[in-house]
């Protein structure tokens, strides 16, 4: 297990992807790979005007913390940052960010992928759609494909 302490932030405000990468790498010479994933709000070909992200304060931090702790245990990471926004988010804006830093690319790729798969199905956030015609589009339904994506990371015997 590495001694890396993941940085977890649940916030209403936007984030700066470049600044987050720099935050993990500045002053260091041992990091060979940084993988970032950012999730953005898309407008569904003009049909969507905004997303409202509801979250469970307290548990959102705790659950993402548990997922991140598992990631640093499974992969040799030198830094890990996870940011998830809540509140109203407009098309084109950021929703989520994972930055994984490691000596080599494979660990960074896999850890970022694992985190996103688990965030999708276990982090307590719910998206409600607002449509371009001014109506409330309702709550997004969870996709079975997201559950299956998370299941593939299970270790044998789980």
């Amino acid at each position, binding site marked *: 297990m590495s001694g890396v302490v993941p940085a977890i932030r649940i916030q209403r405000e936007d984030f700066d992807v470049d600044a987050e990468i720099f935050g993990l790498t500045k002053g260091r010479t041992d990091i060979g790979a940084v993988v970032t994933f950012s999730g953005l709000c898309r407008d569904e070909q003009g049909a969507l005007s905004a997303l409202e992200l509801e979250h*469970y304060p307290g548990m959102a931090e705790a659950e993402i913390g548990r997922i991140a702790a598992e990631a640093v245990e499974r992969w040799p990471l030198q830094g890990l940052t996870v940011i998830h926004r809540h509140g109203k988010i407009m098309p084109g804006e950021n929703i989520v960010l994972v930055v994984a830093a490691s000596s080599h690319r494979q660990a960074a790729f896999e850890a970022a992928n694992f985190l996103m798969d688990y*965030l999708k199905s276990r982090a*307590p*956030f719910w998206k409600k759609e607002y449509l371009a015609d001014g109506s409330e589009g309702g709550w997004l339904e*969870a996709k079975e494909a997201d559950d299956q994506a998370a299941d593939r990371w299970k270790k044998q015997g789980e």
Partner: protein
Amino acid sequence: MSTKLIYFAWVRERIGKPEEDVDLPSGIETVGDLLRWLKSRGEEYENALQYPDVIRVAINQEHVGHREKIAGAREIALFPPMTGG
């Protein structure tokens, strides 16, 4: 002992409140028992918990299954499958 129940997303909207404190009657031992009891409390609960299998539950801010015992729970949250990320 009173237990805090918290609701999110469409579970919250259908029940019509974000949270409440309840005194659980004796005999409510598991999450499944709790869901069955809540469902009998009125039309809004019936509407929210019509398909109990889809309801996800957290006790003290950790995911649990429907067979989990609820003894000692301070805070129990009920919500739909999550759609974050």
